[in-house]
Every structure is written in structure tokens, then in C-alpha cells.
């Protein structure tokens, strides 16, 4: 059993080594974060934000942090197979949480744009990193954010100076290969998009077979005035992996931000996405698609903070669960007293393919302004048997009919994904997933 104390004492052991990897101000952030972690400990189901997600299975393992990059000869093509076909993207690869130059391909960047490892950025652009790092994601409110911050060694730094645009999707690929011992990584991503910039960014997480490991990433994104960021988090960890991730977004005036949270892998997965709409005229979309089978547990928690007037937010989460899989969707919308004329929508729809699959869906609307439009809806159901019969009566086989309906259900999220390699690959992944679910004889 690795409890809070285990993690704290491990941090103490590593501290000297850790302190050598970064400037002292970074280490100060780490030390303060481990204190925040110590105050909170691991959450129990008594904590309202963790009511339906037990982290105990995670604590059964003694995960080893990895302090350095070990090149282990992964071929880039193998990664394409596991993740997305990312030719034409700018790729930054991390192996076990460390930047892998040999597996990265950034191409020539527009003037002033930085896409580099966080370690490198701490040397080349420390002031800017210091201005933003750990300024958005709250270590006091989520012990996993605190753990990530305490152990932050490497990750990605993206900086888009005013009026720049990166046309090609930027792919941040996180590969974990645990081999013999279960390992733990804390990737940290910092994205600073100055005024009037545009970029698409895909964060992906992949693993091999049934490797046991723990990925605990934190992403901070600040999108300044009139900037447009299209983001996607693609979670395809191994079947035995643990993934606890937070994406924290800060949005400026007239900015646009869209993210798609796709969860396919992992045994225990928790995604937190928090967006603060901190000025007027912002459009923010947070969508998600989660597929779970076996004993997978996938928890998506979203928080949209409408802090200022005249902003729009849209949320659409869809899930497909089979076997004994469990999912949680908690969508919180917080409209501050100032945020008049807010337009916030939220939908969570879920299909259960078996009697034992389970979803807990919970919209939480906290509205402190009086002139706002807020809607939410949740629906849980099975595949529509009338539709299955309709398709079959036209000659389409039962399994193909069911697959067609599953694809149709997912299409609403898929078609909204503007990053082509992600959308194209996901269409295939869903078919594969469903074929496997059916092969197990449980989805049919």
C-alpha cells in the first residue's frame, strides 16, 4: 500500500536530485506543492468531487518515478500505429515523461514561436515560463495537481507570440513503457497563446499492452485576447494504466477555445478540465467521448467558470459503456454575479451496452447572475432496438446495424473535431473498440 506518506517520503528522497534539474524558483514551487499535497492527501469518496471514483486501486501499486530519459529504441512508426497518423503534424514526443528528441519532429517554426521541452525552456526563456508556470492550475484544490507540480521535471512549453499562427497541428505524444516495474510520470504542459494567435494542439497518451503505470499530467493553457486554440486530449493508455489528468484553461477577451476529451484506454481514469472565462466575448467548447469496457472506470469532471458577461460555453459529452465499465460525468457551470448574458449549455449522453455497465452523471449549475441562459441535459439509454430492426429490415446485419448506430451516436462529437488526423483515426478506433466489445460477446 502506497499512501500519502509513501509519496511524501519518496519526494524527500528525490529532492536533492530534483533540485538539480531546475532553477531554484521551480524548486520552491515544488516544495510548496508537496505541502499542498500533504494537506490534502489522496481523496476519498467523502470528498464531493470524488464521490463516485475510488482511488484506492491506484494506491495498491508502488510506482517508481523516472528521473531521466532512457532511450529504448522505440520506432516512430510503431507510435503512429498506436496513436494517430501524424505526418504533417509537428510532433513532440515524451517517453516516460521525458522529452525524446529522437522521436520528435518540430520542423521549422514561425518566427518567435517556441515549441520545446519545458526543461529547455527553463534555460532559454525562464522569465516567461516563470510568469505562467503553476499560475493557473490550483495545487490546493486537487492533490494530483499538487503531486504533478511537486515532481515537475519535464513537459512541453508552447509559446505563440502576438499575431502568430501555427498551421499544422502540434502533437504532444506521451508514451509510457513500464517494462518490468510500474512507473510514474508527471508530464507538465504550459501553453501561452498571446493575442490574436491560432494553433491546434493534440495531447495524446499511449501505452503498451497491459503495462501497469501511472500518468499524472497537468496542462496549463492561457489564451489571450482574440486568440483561437483548438485542443484535444486523446487518452489511449494501456489497459492497466492509471491516468489522472488536469487541463486548466484561462481565457481572455474575445478568445475562442475548443477542446475534445477522448478517453479510450486506462483502467482508472480521471480527467479534470477547468476553464475560466475571464473576459467578455469568449466562446468555449468542451466536448468529450469516452468508451469503456471490462472493468474500466472513466471519470470526466468539467468546470466552466463564467467570470465575465457575454460569453458562451458549450459542453457535449458522450459515452459508450460495455461489460462492467463505470463512468462518471460531473459538469459544473459556475456563473459569477458579474457574468450577465452568459449562454451556457451542457449535455451528457451515454449508451450502456450491458446490464452491468454504470454511469453517474451529475450536472451542477451554480448561477449567481440573473440574466443568463443555462441549459443542461443528461440521457442514458441502450441502443435503440427499433432502429436496429429498421436497419436489419433493409438487409444490414445485426452486428453491422448496431455498429452503425454506435458510430452515429459518436458522430456528433467526432464531426466536431477539426483536427483531421485525430478525427480520422478515431473513426477507426471506435469501430475497433466495438468489434472487440462484440468479440467478447458482451455487447451483442
Amino acid at each position: 500500500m502506497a499512501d500519502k506518506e509513501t509519496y511524501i517520503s519518496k519526494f524527500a528522497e528525490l529532492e536533492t536530485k530534483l533540485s538539480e534539474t531546475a532553477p531554484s524558483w521551480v524548486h520552491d514551487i515544488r516544495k510548496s506543492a508537496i505541502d499542498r499535497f500533504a494537506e490534502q492527501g489522496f481523496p476519498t469518496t467523502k470528498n464531493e468531487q470524488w464521490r463516485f471514483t475510488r482511488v484506492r486501486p491506484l494506491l495498491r501499486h508502488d510506482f517508481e518515478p523516472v528521473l531521466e530519459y532512457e532511450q529504448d529504441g522505440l520506432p516512430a512508426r510503431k507510435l503512429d500505429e498506436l496513436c494517430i497518423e501524424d505526418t504533417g503534424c509537428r510532433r513532440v514526443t515524451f517517453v516516460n515523461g521525458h522529452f525524446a528528441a529522437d522521436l520528435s519532429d518540430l520542423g521549422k517554426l514561425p518566427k518567435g514561436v517556441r515549441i520545446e521541452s519545458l526543461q529547455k525552456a527553463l534555460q532559454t526563456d525562464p522569465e516567461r515560463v516563470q510568469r505562467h508556470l503553476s499560475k493557473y492550475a490550483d495545487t490546493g484544490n486537487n492533490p494530483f495537481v499538487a503531486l504533478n507540480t511537486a515532481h515537475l521535471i519535464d513537459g512541453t512549453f508552447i509559446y505563440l507570440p502576438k499575431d502568430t499562427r501555427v498551421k499544422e497541428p502540434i502533437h504532444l505524444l506521451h508514451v509510457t513503457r513500464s517494462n518490468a516495474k510500474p512507473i510514474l510520470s508527471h508530464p507538465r504542459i504550459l501553453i501561452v497563446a498571446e493575442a490574436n494567435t491560432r494553433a491546434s494542439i493534440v495531447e495524446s497518451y499511449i501505452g503498451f499492452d497491459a503495462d501497469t503505470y501511472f500518468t499524472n499530467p497537468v496542462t496549463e493553457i492561457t489564451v489571450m485576447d482574440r486568440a483561437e486554440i483548438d485542443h484535444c486530449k486523446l487518452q489511449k493508455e494501456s489497459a492497466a494504466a492509471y491516468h489522472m489528468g488536469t487541463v486548466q484553461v484561462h481565457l481572455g477577451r474575445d478568445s475562442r477555445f475548443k477542446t475534445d476529451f477522448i478517453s479510450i484506454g486506462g483502467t482508472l481514469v480521471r480527467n479534470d478540465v477547468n476553464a475560466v472565462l475571464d473576459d467578455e466575448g469568449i466562446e468555449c467548447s468542451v466536448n468529450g467521448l469516452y468508451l469503456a469496457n471490462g472493468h474500466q472506470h472513466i471519470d470526466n469532471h468539467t468546470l466552466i467558470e463564467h467570470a465575465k458577461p457575454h460569453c458562451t460555453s458549450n459542453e457535449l459529452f458522450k459515452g459508450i459503456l460495455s461489460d462492467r465499465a463505470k463512468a462518471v460525468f460531473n459538469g459544473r457551470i459556475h456563473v459569477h454575479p458579474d457574468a450577465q448574458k452568459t449562454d451556457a449549455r451542457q449535455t451528457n449522453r451515454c449508451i450502456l451496452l450491458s446490464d452491468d455497465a454504470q454511469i453517474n452523471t451529475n450536472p451542477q449549475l451554480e448561477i449567481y447572475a440573473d440574466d443568463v441562459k443555462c441549459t443542461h441535459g443528461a440521457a442514458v439509454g441502450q441502443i435503440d432496438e427499433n432502429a436496429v430492426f429498421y436497419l436489419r429490415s433493409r438487409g444490414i446485419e445485426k452486428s453491422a446495424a448496431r455498429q452503425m448506430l454506435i458510430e452515429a451516436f459518436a458522430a456528433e462529437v467526432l464531426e466536431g473535431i477539426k483536427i483531421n488526423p485525430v478525427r480520422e483515426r478515431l473513426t477507426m478506433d471506435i469501430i475497433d473498440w466495438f468489434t472487440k466489445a462484440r468479440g467478447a460477446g458482451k455487447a451483442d
Partner: protein
Amino acid sequence: MLEIKNLHASIQGKEILKGVDLKVSAGQVHAIMGPNGSGKSTLAQVIAGRDTFDVTSGDILYKGKSILEMAPEERACEGIFLAFQYPVEIPGVRNSYFLKSALNAKRKYNGEDEIDAMEFLALIKDKIELLEIKKSFIERPVNDGFSGGEKKRNEVLQMAVLEPTLAVLDETDSGLDIDALKIVANGVNALRGPGRAIVVVTHYQRLLNYIVPDVVHVLLDGRIVKTGDRDLALELEDKGYAEVQKQAAKG
């Protein structure tokens, strides 16, 4: 083509069809008329293979073979088509994709090559014109947000594309205005031919002005109580089902 023998069918233990006998030969159009609740739609759905109904006894022969053990998709590939009274809305599936999948499923079943998107478009061009359907119609999600008339037209479009040997039209006239009724009837009539049989299930005789049947049956309380020619439909319209019911009761 179709021979139904003493067919009994029930849903959740409640018997709906209580011994239906019906014989439809190739080249013929039969109309099955009856009041609400007489079992018309049940009969149509049982022919198509809906498994919410239990066939408790009797048999359905199609081209001389029993189809009771066949899955709905198998029946469809063998050439049976049901135009639904209430076509199902399927958001997220494009009409064209659905139609092409259905057509290719049938072609594959019959050992033919699947057709590609270009060939498919060429193939449906005429059918679309015949049914006075807008081209954009086929790129919309299946029946999603369609008006009643559009849904029925879509059923007939599917029928035109799949070219069934036995078509069963379940209340295809309901919800249609007179113009739409004519268009739909044109679509159905275009399919009439020596190799095909059509069964039109309807409440009103109005549709039969446009799709003129060879034989008319009256279905009452799960049994066919009267069979006649076209004039029977007119008589029904004139006297109502109650009169036929009385006569049937007298035997």
C-alpha cells in the same frame, strides 16, 4: 410468391393474429384493409421478421420456403421489403450511407460486387427524380427531422433502390397529402411487374385509387374475413367495417 398459412402471432402473451391465411402470386397487388387494431401492422411486421412478436403457430412461405427461421436481414436480402408505418429516425447516419450500405448488403448476399459511391449516385439519380426528392435529401440523417410525407417518400425511395420481389407497404398513405400520395403511388407503381408482388396495408381505400389492387382482403380481429376484388374496397368505404363485421359474424 407469398403464402401465409393459419398464422398465429402474439405479443407479450396477447394474441393478435388468430389464423391468417393469405396467398399472393407474382405480378399481383393485394390490399389488406381493416380497422385499427385488427392486426394489419402486426402482420406486416411479422412478415419482415420483427422479433417482438412470437409466431405461435402457422407458417409464412416465401418463394415456397418457410421464412420463420430467417433473420430480418436475411429476409431483406432474399427480396422482402417492409415500408414502415412509422419510419425510424436515425440521427448521425446519413441517408446516402444508409441506402448504400443496405444495397451493398443485399448485393453481397447475392454474390454481386459492392458498388462504390459514384455508381451509387448514378443509380439513385432516376429514383430521386421519380419521387420528386431534392438531392440534399439523401445527405440528411435518416428520417431525422423529416416531415411525415418526407419519411414516407424515403421509404419508397429505399424500396426503389432495393428493388424487392415482395414489398409490404404498411399504411404508407397515412400522413400524406394528395400530391404526396400521387408521388408515392407513382413510385410504387413503377415497381409493379410480373416478377413482383406488392401487399398494401391500409385503413382507407383512398390509396387504392392510385395503386389499383388485384385482390382486396379484409382483416378483422386477427383473421382475414373477406376477400374480393377492387369493388370490395369501395364497398368498405361505403358501408364501413361494421357492416362487414356483421356479415362475418353471421358467417
